């Protein structure tokens, strides 16, 4: 394992705990030695010398002190495993078949389906050879024989493939049958060769899809990139018509003759289980989340929802660089003591000149908190961005920022160690968009002190670390505040928000499950007050897995500002069956929640707001107490030098901005790096940059709700970076102080 610079990393099993609950931390030092661990409450993660500097509070705990370190490995690569069976062991003649859609043929040997013993290196595996041609390998543990068609498969094309073994004749036949034919492309093959090796298969020999069991450091090798649809195992040397006959999605009647196993990946799409419709019920499980609810070879295009035609979604897409759970052993644990203050905490570990933080939320004790305000830690967003690779993978990155990307130690590590998994802003090695993301691995950009290429000029903070500007301001202001993670709101719904009358959100609360969105909606409908502190909010719909913890799905469907596009027919989440994409595309634009929604982005420098006529309405007087009529608001700050920047939102009555909304201030003076977002453009037109386009601005808004509550939205990601300016004495901080103070006052607004 290459460890350029990085010497220690870890993660926790949970992202949020309450007093009385315990949390496990899993640490790898990548080489032997002792490391130190301690518990800290995170306050301000920005080390910019222009700002207040790094702030934390050390908290005494049982795990504080030195620990023995050891290397814990990460094994990426999605695959599926079926345990061994007497029916496998009893095979003499057999047919191993599937329909496949390889995405990286020729990129090394790749196993499609294997009945293989790792220890003795025996069995049979059907796969692609180094050139991308279909091959089968038979081994008895002493001798090994490989047969190949010698004709590479085309990338992203469907093929029926099979290996047919006839023991009496000592032959193996390979079928490689393209489903689409082209002139001058010779990719079809049926060959028979004599083999003098009978594969050794016992009742303990597992059947693996998408890789080959190994006895080496990694449990699975020869990882496959691409789709597998309807694999079957027959106890006979079938001819071609028999093979094609068994490709029917559901096997009935005579089709079941000689069938040992007929896996149907369209069963249990929302689970980590795979289903065998054959007589032996050789069910299995997936590892590292192969992508499900993807089009199979028989997808017609007539049906876009996998739940309506599951038989057309019998494929899974495997990726060599997919990771769900690193599966590390627990290094130490914490049981949260009663009475512990709610906040954003981290286990801080140090080893030689390197360190890592494993952040987590401590919730308030149910029923015991006296705080009326809650900060929602946007853990869904942290997961969406987890270990993203855009500065090293995406040519447009430096165009977006108008800056040469800066790579810190953690950036270089995730670039060089792809097995730590990617974000939902990345593509897999084969170019498919990453729609699943997990927090059960070191997420090295979810860290205090971390700087990110997307964070504009200045502090260069984005997401987790940028959000500490808000946490620091809450701390400095002295307002009592509890902390909840997105997963708490998802799991417990409005009940999680029950003790509170004011919600304050992050710089960029972009990803929302239906449960999370509904909880905030219900909170508002009981008179709750909402302070939306960021830009590009309530944007993407996401789904959490119902049984696998720490796993989230994003289908980048239809339109919107997207790092990649979901394939046609693959817009529905596999975890829940819910339609994916922008909330706006589902008739629930962010304007309905907080008055404004995403309109423009740019990542160079930020700007300021100027007061609008509505700001002089007496309903808004409390917001501007102590602020001059002609003051520029936020023409300073650590994020791009201003409060309005990176991603900005605007009012749009057609998208649901309430009619009683006051537009208090709007930003101006953005550069041409700021461009109107894709979802605002139907026909392309010139002049969509910040210097020319009147739509490129953020609107600070306020409105009261019918239930006596109110909403205040800043509409800019950069906003939080201005709070600490001039030792927290500035018009952005003053405005926030005015808002929070009034929002905490139970007197109804209307």
């Amino acid at each position, binding site marked *: 394992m290459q460890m350029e610079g990085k010497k220690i990393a870890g993660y926790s099993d949970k992202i949020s705990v309450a007093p009385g609950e315990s949390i496990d931390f899993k640490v790898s030092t990548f080489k032997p030695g002792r490391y130190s661990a301690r518990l800290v409450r995170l306050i301000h993660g920005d080390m910019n010398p222009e700002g207040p500097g790094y702030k934390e509070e050390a908290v005494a705990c049982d795990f504080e002190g030195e620990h023995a370190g050891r290397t814990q490995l990460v094994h990426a690569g999605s695959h599926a495993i079926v345990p061994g069976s007497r029916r496998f062991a009893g095979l003499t003649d057999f047919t191993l078949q599937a329909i496949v859609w390889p995405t990286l043929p020729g990129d090394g040997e790749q196993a499609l389906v294997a009945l293989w013993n790792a220890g003795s290196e025996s069995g049979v595996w059907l796969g692609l050879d180094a050139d991308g041609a279909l091959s089968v390998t038979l081994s008895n543990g002493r001798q090994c024989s490989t047969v190949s068609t010698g004709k590479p498969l085309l990338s992203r094309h469907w093929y029926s493939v099979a290996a047919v073994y006839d023991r009496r004749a000592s032959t193996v036949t390979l079928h490689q049958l393209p489903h689409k034919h082209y002139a001058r492309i010779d990719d079809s093959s049926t060959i028979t060769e004599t083999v003098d090796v009978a594969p050794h298969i016992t009742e303990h020999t597992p059947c693996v899809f998408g890789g080959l069991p190994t006895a080496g450091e990694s449990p699975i090798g020869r990882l496959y990139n691409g789709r597998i649809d309807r694999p079957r195992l027959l106890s006979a040397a079938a001819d071609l018509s028999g093979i094609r006959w068994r490709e029917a999605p559901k096997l009935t009647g005579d089709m079941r003759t000689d069938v040992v196993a007929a896996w149907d990946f369209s069963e249990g799409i929302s689970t980590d289980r795979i289903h065998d419709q054959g007589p032996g019920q050789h069910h299995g499980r997936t590892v590292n989340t192969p992508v499900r609810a993807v089009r199979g070879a028989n997808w017609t295009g007539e049906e876009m929802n996998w739940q309506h035609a599951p038989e057309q979604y019998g494929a899974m897409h495997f990726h060599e660089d997919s990771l769900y759970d690193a599966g590390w052993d627990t290094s130490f644990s914490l049981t949260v003591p009663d009475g512990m203050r709610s906040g954003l905490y981290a286990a801080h570990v140090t080893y030689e000149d390197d360190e890592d933080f494993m952040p987590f939320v401590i919730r308030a004790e149910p029923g015991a908190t006296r705080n009326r305000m809650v900060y929602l830690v946007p853990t869904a967003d942290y997961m969406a961005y987890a270990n993203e690779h855009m500065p090293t*993978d995406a040519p447009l990155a430096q165009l977006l920022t108008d800056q*040469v990307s*800066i790579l*810190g130690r953690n950036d270089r590590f995730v670039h060089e160690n792809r097995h730590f998994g990617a974000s939902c802003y990345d593509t897999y090695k084969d170019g498919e968009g990453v729609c699943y993301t997990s927090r059960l691995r070191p997420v090295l950009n979810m860290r205090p002190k971390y700087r990110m290429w997307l964070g504009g000029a200045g502090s260069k903070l984005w997401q987790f670390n940028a959000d500490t500007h808000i946490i620091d301001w809450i701390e400095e202001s002295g307002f009592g505040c509890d902390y909840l993670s997105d997963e708490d709101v998802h799991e417990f719904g409005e009940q999680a928000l029950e003790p509170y009358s004011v919600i304050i959100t992050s710089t960029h609360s972009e990803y929302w499950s239906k449960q999370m969105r509904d909880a905030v909606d219900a909170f508002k409908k009981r008179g709750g007050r909402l302070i939306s502190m960021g830009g590009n909010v309530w944007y993407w719909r996401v789904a959490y897995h119902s049984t696998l913890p720490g796993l989230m799905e994003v289908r980048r469907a239809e339109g919107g500002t997207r790092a990649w596009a979901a394939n046609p027919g693959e817009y529905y989440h596999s975890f829940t069956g819910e339609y994916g994409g922008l909330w706006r595309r589902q008739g629930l634009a962010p304007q309905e929640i907080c008055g404004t929604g995403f309109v423009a982005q740019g990542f160079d420098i930020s700007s300021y707001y100027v007061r609008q006529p509505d700001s002089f309405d007496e309903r808004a007087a409390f917001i501007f107490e102590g602020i001059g009529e002609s003051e520029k608001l936020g023409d300073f700050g650590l994020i791009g030098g201003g409060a309005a920047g990176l991603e900005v939102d605007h009012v749009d009555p057609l998208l649901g901005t309430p009619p009683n909304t006051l537009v208090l201030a709007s930003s101006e003076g953005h550069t041409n790096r700021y461009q109107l977002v894709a979802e605002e453009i139907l026909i392309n037109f010139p002049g969509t940059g910040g210097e020319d386009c009147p739509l490129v601005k953020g609107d600070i808004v306020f409105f009261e709700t019918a239930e006596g509550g109110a909403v205040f939205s800043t509409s800019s990601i950069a906003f939080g970076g201005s709070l600490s300016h001039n030792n927290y004495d500035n018009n952005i901080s003053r405005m926030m102080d005015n808002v929070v103070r009034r929002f905490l006052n139970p007197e109804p607004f209307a």
Partner: protein
Amino acid sequence: MEKPDRSLAEEFRRQPIGHHSPELERILFLFRGQGMAGKFVLVEDEPFRKWRLGQLSGRRGDPVKIVSDRVFESVEEAEWEVFKRRWKIHFGEDLE
């Protein structure tokens, strides 16, 4: 693109980030939009203090190549170095 006027390089040097003239923007689209193979990046040695010039290979997982031992003590200084190198690559001319 034809070789632009050197005054645009001076404009960049004065203000590498922020509002640019349309002529300078055209050059920056070319420079910054390059593919990943050979793309310049900055490698952070010390936060907010020290950077070195790096280059990507365009292949995932390849270590970032350190182009020289020169340590930059401001991002602007490093931006200017990258700009000069890209100017040389695209227009064949040494600035300074």
